[in-house]
């Protein structure tokens, strides 16, 4: 080998060659067996034979004891079995239970395949590694390799060897014994003179390689133990980065630069079909029209042939809440309006009640009015409810007194707007949509209309057959 030659040259004082024993060469295995028996019978135990294939009977002829390898392999197999069973019991029965069809955890018949495989795996590797260990392999330096004749030991020649460390070993007597067994040739085995220590450049090279090999591991360990502001370094993006836009991001695809797209006008969410129904809104959403000016949505209301600007907010049809109660122009006549800033939304409110004006609905409206509305607006609708009176007596300037329902502008409001006020609130008044159902709200509107009518009624409003029951029949009193 190159290295050996190099070493021999570099080694200034090679050790004197030392004899290790005698080696006899034979033509075939039978001569070897006979010779081996002779050597054994002569009492030598530090003997060995080198053959190209396992010669049957040589163990007996040389007195070699059976190997303990099978027991080592048995132990390894049992270790593999126990490892597999413990692993499956702990991983699936204790540490991370998979609940599947109510099947039992831990050791089940389903554990058999993996247990079997690991038993084999452990045994097989122990067989090979145990064989190498028991044979002292790998061993690259061996005195027998010093003789070129020995190369045929793996080809077609059979060798018998008596080692010098045998307690009966005597150089001359062993030579004499081996000469008497019809050997092809007889050679003394000389110790391998190659220095046992590795040359320095190999050691340095190996050290450098090992150190270089530690660098990635050191970097990884350092990264695990330290903190960094930089984002993670991704070898594979997995699903962390996808060609898609997330909320609040910008885009160049749309003119307005937003990734979150607004709903198309008229879009109705699932379960909110009532948002399209005037019965629930108080106005007709189909008459609300939108256009876009400079990327900003503008809501326009179309009633008949006139158009009014409603608001500049979200295109979802939501009239702005919180418009001050005072200064609200009369609705229902948006065409006349030149809406000032903060103007009430001029929605296309319903002019006609969507419920029937019968006694049942009046009674329902009266009951609900007295529960929800009378506290502020008063039983007669003059804005003189108990809460209102109490607030007025406290004289706090944060209180906005409730409107009288008999004001002219409220009397002129379409029924839809009153419904809308109950639903959405107005000024200090909160929304009652969550407390009062649409049907009840319309009933309240009906009752409010009745209250207003009662303040402006004349005798013609009373049915003819009941006029007689009025206690004060003077016609001049009524108006």
């Amino acid at each position, binding site marked *: *080998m*190159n*290295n050996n030659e190099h070493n021999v040259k570099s080694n200034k004082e090679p050790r004197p060659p030392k004899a290790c024993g005698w080696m006899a060469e034979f033509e075939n295995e039978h001569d070897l*067996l*006979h010779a081996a028996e002779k050597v054994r019978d002569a009492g030598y135990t530090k003997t*060995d*034979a*080198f*053959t*190209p*294939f*396992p*010669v*049957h*009977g040589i*163990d007996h*002829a*040389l007195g*070699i004891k*059976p*190997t303990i*390898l*099978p027991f080592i*392999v048995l132990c390894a197999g049992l270790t593999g079995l126990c490892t597999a069973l413990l692993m499956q019991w702990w*991983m*699936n029965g204790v540490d*991370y239970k*998979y609940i599947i069809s109510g*099947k039992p955890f831990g050791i*089940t018949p*389903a*554990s058999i*395949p*993996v247990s*079997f*495989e*690991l038993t*084999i*795996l452990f*045994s*097989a*590797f122990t*067989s*090979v590694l145990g*064989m190498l260990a*028991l*044979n002292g*392999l*790998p*061993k*690259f*330096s*061996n005195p027998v390799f010093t003789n070129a004749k*020995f*190369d045929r*030991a*793996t*080809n*077609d020649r059979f060798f018998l060897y008596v080692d010098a460390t045998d307690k009966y070993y005597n150089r001359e007597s062993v030579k004499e014994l081996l000469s008497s067994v019809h050997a092809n040739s007889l050679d003394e085995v000389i110790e391998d003179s190659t220095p046992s220590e590795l040359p320095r450049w190999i050691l340095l090279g190996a050290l450098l390689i090992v150190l270089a090999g530690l660098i990635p591991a050191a970097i990884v360990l350092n990264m695990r133990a330290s903190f960094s502001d930089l984002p993670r370094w991704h070898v*594979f993006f997995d699903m962390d980065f996808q060609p898609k836009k997330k909320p609040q991001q910008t885009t160049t695809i749309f003119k307005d630069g937003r990734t979150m797209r607004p709903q198309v006008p008229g879009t109705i969410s699932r379960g909110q079909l009532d948002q399209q129904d005037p019965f629930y809104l108080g106005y007709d959403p189909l008459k609300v029209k939108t256009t876009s000016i400079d990327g900003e949505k503008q809501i326009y209301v179309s009633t008949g042939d006139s158009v009014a600007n409603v608001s500049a907010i979200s295109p979802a049809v939501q009239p702005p809440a919180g418009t001050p109660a005072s200064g609200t122009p009369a609705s229902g006549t948006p065409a006349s309006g030149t809406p000032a800033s903060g103007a009430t939304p001029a929605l296309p409110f319903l002019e006609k009640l969507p419920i029937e004006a019968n006694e049942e609905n009046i009674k329902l409206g009266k009951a609900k009015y007295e529960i929800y509305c009378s506290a502020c607006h008063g039983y007669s609708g003059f804005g003189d409810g108990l809460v209102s009176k109490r607030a007025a007596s406290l004289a706090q300037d944060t209180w906005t007194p409730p409107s009288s329902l008999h004001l002219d502008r409220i009397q002129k409001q379409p029924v839809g707007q009153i419904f809308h006020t109950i639903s959405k609130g107005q000024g200090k008044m909160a929304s009652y949509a969550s407390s009062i159902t649409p049907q009840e709200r319309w009933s309240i509107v009906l009752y409010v209309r009745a209250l207003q009518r009662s303040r402006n009624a004349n005798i013609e409003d009373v049915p003819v057959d009941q006029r007689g029951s009025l206690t004060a029949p003077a016609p001049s009193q009524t108006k």
Partner: protein
Amino acid sequence: MASISSSYNPREIDNTEDMPGRRAPLITGNQTYTSVTEMVCRVAEDPQPRLWWILFGMASLTASMFLMLIGFLIYKGVGIWGNSSPVFWAWPIVNFVFWVGIGHAGTLISAILFLFRQNWRTSINRAAEAMTIFAVICAGIYPGIHVGRAWLAFWLLPYPSLNLWMWPQFRSPLLWDVFAVGTYASTSLVFWYMGMIPDLATYRDRSKSPFRRFIYGLLCLGWTGSSRHWLVYEKAYTLLAALAAPLVLSVHTVVSFDFAVSQLPGWHTTIFPPYFVAGAIFSGFAMVVTLLVPMRAIYKLENLITLRHLDNMNKIILATGSLVGLAYGTEFFMAWYSQNQYESFTFINRAFGPYWWAYWIMVTCNVISPQLFWFKWMRTNVVAMWIVSIFVNIGMWFERFVITVTSLSRDFLPSSWGYYRPTLFDGLMFFGSFGVFMTLFLLFCRYLPTIAISEVKGVMSASDHAGHLEAEVLAELQGKDPKHAGHAH
């Protein structure tokens, strides 16, 4: 010596004759230990024939294409394959089972035939084991890249993950597969390697160049042929054979569980484990014949891999092919006998449905073609057996295709039926895996001992001196010292 051993006349000695009481020689041409060494080592020592270079060029190009396609697959995703609802287990799994099946012959020859004292195995076991390793490598690639995110394939193993905080599901046949194929691949590898150690020492000792001597010296771990070493070595080999024999049978059993443990008609049957194992041995032996017939001709190994070896392998192909045919028949019988309408439909659909062509290719190649081996002329004609072995390879690929695709494409719900079509990538990647297989096998021929030299010599010895051993046994029975009896003989 070389000139003697290479002069081969197939009709000179007919060692395919099996006469009771007479033992036909395992190897022909009056071989000696020297000539056997010479014949095997020459394969690696002489310059390779031109055909080797041509084949190696083609194979390595194909293998490179395969590796590039794998790279593209990882970049682009498994969508480049034809796998689509309802057939998500398509060619990747078909190819996996195909290659794993082929990978059964090697260890079967080295382990089970060893335990049965089938000495003829010695001439073919090394090449068959090498073929096994390479086939399992090809097999392992497919599930590895079929998992989608191939760089996370190590998640299959039970390791304490800091990302997942969970363990694999040990009740899943797919996990059993990881363990079975993993154990089989690693055990086959060490079995193969351990068997090669003495022969690598032979290569080392014949090496002329110091570099070659150094490399083979490292590989053979300093093997000397010491009898004390041989004793432990033989024990270890026996143990490995005893361990590998049930392992061989378990691997394809577990592979069949991937199908049989599911509830799909056509998969959910108890016949699958033996049926798959028989099919695996069948396909494996066919692949051994496919490889050895050209190999023995190219490297002039006809005296070592004789017609008797091929004859024996063809007998096994005939037996396992008939077993597979029996399994096909049994499946139909059970479909009828169970009176299960889904099962009946599945099998009628296999034979007469949209994939009828695949089914009948399978039956022709797997059941009918090996029946030719009833004739000795077919069993001992190298060209004929090579053609049949190719047919068997094709048939066994179609068997896995039929099982996988027909059952998946038409299951319980007709509304979710479909027809699977592979893409160009499916075809190229299957073809590419043959490139990997052939590249590795050609390199094996070029650099490693293709025949177990020491085992062949051991068998030569035993047959030459059978009388010697008989005398020893007789002497022992008569109470004499056996070694004296041996001397007398």
